[in-house]
């Protein structure tokens, strides 16, 4: 009875705190500019099913892909058992599904135990890959400190959770009235000779450790890169369906250009009453980015596949697409905390461009989309880079001088180089070919 009460209080607190944090993050994401990403719902569901549910992009790197799927499948399926744990916890029952399912229950739990071993194995492999194997993408400058600790903590917590589950069952395997399952029967000798009271204590401690661990882990998610296990789903759903090369045409600029091209427009006319003041062109801070870029930022799990294929990064430039995403998320979290504290955003004298991301970084991007292609959850760093470049070019007028010349050439002679427009057709002068046709 007391156990049930304690459990209900913990469950409510865990779920409530998590929900509060999710609401905050949702609010942070919608600080971004509006963008409609609800067209073609059928294609969106398909993309989500293939990329998030089906992990289609993970396997392009087979080793990481295989072990990731092991953890993913394990976590998703083993969580079915959490349903039973929650019901047991609330009503003070023990393995409520067992009498209902009979022998099938033993098969299912045995299967979950096998998955649990798979998760354990994958976590150990990942710890080894991150800490022992010299994998360059885990050693980039942006991974110093918290990001590396975060990754290791996630793996260690998962090891603890899976161990608790297996040891709980192993303790039960030694109880004559309960019995074990496929893997726990093999683990049973660990507790051979332990008194019935001792076994019961181990079973209870592991049960509580497992469920409290899950609730704590749930509340760790929103502060961690591990939040991707949830965000991957909406993020793939709202991904760009148009070809990767297609950049949006800015609506605000369309209006200005239409005015400029309209011979009847009066350039000195006052804006109509109630007309919206023109906003900032491009992005200086996170609020200037489309909300999808902010969703992207919360979906990033810092795997670094983007950075490892970035032509700028692999040739030693400062630009790292992963850092672009991490900076965007960190600045957004800072803005969110500012709002939590002050009720609404109070200027803190900081901005994404300048305080987090430098001009040198965004200028190095070749917009080759290798990072976009590499991302297992369809994050688009190029979109953020482009918005920051728009601010640099149209608001701050701080583009590299050669780009300034290039703009001038396009304006004056219709080509990025300084050639007279009149020579554009000169390539066709004296065009002699060895034609096999008779007529010229």
């Amino acid at each position, binding site marked *: 009875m007391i156990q049930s009460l304690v459990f209900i209080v913990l469950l409510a607190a865990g779920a409530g705190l998590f929900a509060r944090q999710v609401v905050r993050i949702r609010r942070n994401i919608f600080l971004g500019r509006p963008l409609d990403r609800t067209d073609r719902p059928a294609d969106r569901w398909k993309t989500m099913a293939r990329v998030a549910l089906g992990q289609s992009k993970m396997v392009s790197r087979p080793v990481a892909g295989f072990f990731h799927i092991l953890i993913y499948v394990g976590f998703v399926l083993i969580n079915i058992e959490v349903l039973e744990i929650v019901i047991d916890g609330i009503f003070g029952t023990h393995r409520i599904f067992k009498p209902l399912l009979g022998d099938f229950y033993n098969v299912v739990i045995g299967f979950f135990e096998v998955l649990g071993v798979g998760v354990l194995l994958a976590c150990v492999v990942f710890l080894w890959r991150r800490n022992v194997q010299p994998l360059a993408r885990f050693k980039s400058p942006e991974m110093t400190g918290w990001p590396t600790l975060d990754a290791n903590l996630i793996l260690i917590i998962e090891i603890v959770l899976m161990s608790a589950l297996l040891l709980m069952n192993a303790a039960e395997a030694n109880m004559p009235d309960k019995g074990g399952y496929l893997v726990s029967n093999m683990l049973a000798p660990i507790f051979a000779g332990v008194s019935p009271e001792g076994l019961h204590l181990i079973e209870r401690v592991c049960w509580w450790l497992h469920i409290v661990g899950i609730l704590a882990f749930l509340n760790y998610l929103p502060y961690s890169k591990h939040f991707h296990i949830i965000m991957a789903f909406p993020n793939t759903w709202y991904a760009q369906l148009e*070809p*990767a*090369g*297609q*950049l949006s*045409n*800015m609506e605000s*600029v369309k209006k*200005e*250009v239409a005015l*400029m*091209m309209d011979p009847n427009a009066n350039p000195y006319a006052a804006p109509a009453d109630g007309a919206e003041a023109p906003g900032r062109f*491009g992005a200086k801070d996170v609020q200037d980015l489309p909300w999808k870029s902010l969703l992207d930022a919360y979906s990033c799990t810092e795997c670094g596949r983007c950075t490892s*294929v970035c*032509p*700028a990064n692999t*040739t*030693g*430039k*400062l*630009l790292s697409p992963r850092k672009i995403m991490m900076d965007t998320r960190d600045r957004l979290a800072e803005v969110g905390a500012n709002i939590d504290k002050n009720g609404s955003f109070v200027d803190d004298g900081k901005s994404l461009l300048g305080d987090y991301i430098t001009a*040198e970084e965004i*200028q*190095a*991007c*070749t917009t*080759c*989309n*290798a990072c976009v292609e590499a991302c297992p959850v369809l994050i688009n760093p190029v979109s953020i880079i*482009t918005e920051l*470049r*728009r601010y640099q*070019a*149209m608001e701050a007028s701080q*583009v*590299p001088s*050669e*780009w300034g010349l*290039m*703009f001038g050439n*396009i*304006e004056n002679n*219709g*080509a*990025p*180089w300084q*050639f007279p*427009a009149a020579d*554009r*057709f000169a*390539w*066709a002068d004296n*065009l*002699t*070919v*060895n*034609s*096999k*046709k008779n007529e*010229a």
Partner: protein
Amino acid sequence: MSTTLKIDTMAELAARGEAPEILFWVGCAGSFDDRARRITRAFAAILHEVGIKFAVLGTEESCTGDPAKRAGNEFLFQMQAMQNIQVMNMYEVKKIVTACPHCFNTLKNEYPDLGGNYEVLHHATLLQQLINEGRIKVQGGGTFKGKRITFHDSCYLGRANGIYEAPRAVLEALDADLVEMKRSKANGLCCGAGGAQMFKEAEKGNKEVNIERMDDVLESKAEVVAAACPFCMTMLTDGIKNKEKESSIHVYDLAELVAKANGLID
């Protein structure tokens, strides 16, 4: 038979009350860059040889605005786009082919929203169609029969627009020994010129991107690197010069390879 070609402009055709089957969008590189002009001439020769009625805008063509847009100057991009769209809509252009993937991407993906709706083809796709239809045949075994050729994917053709097979189909028709580089197709490495990088020095690093790409080129042991983009052409040619391999490795555009294999150009 040596023939001097007369290339029609849209204005000339319109004056005669005619319209072409297709507009050949030459682009800035194809119009002004010496090396890219050879691609333009080769492609024009192919169009002429297969008897496609085509025309160019000539001096009425202007930059699509792609480098301005990628560098952040959306104003300049949209000004360019509106100007080009006005010209093309005036001539009632229906179908466009271009040898530049940057022009291709912009015309195909970014112009419709501004009122420019055309069927836009990259020349790799048109060449593949012509080969499939039997309108281009590689004669006499072909100059490139058995030669080791690798294809460098342009980012704006490949990842940006998912066109990976058309250029390879063209190369296969040359009876060449097509080999893939370590990084190809969706995993292809950029030449370093996209996103308006063509028009400025690279940021501080330890290597130029085109030099990094040379590792893949040399490893493939190809004698010919096929390109489908005038900017890639510049970057690859410079990279090969940097490695002092210009006598053993040649860079050609798809159009040049097809034109050479057919004896249209030397």
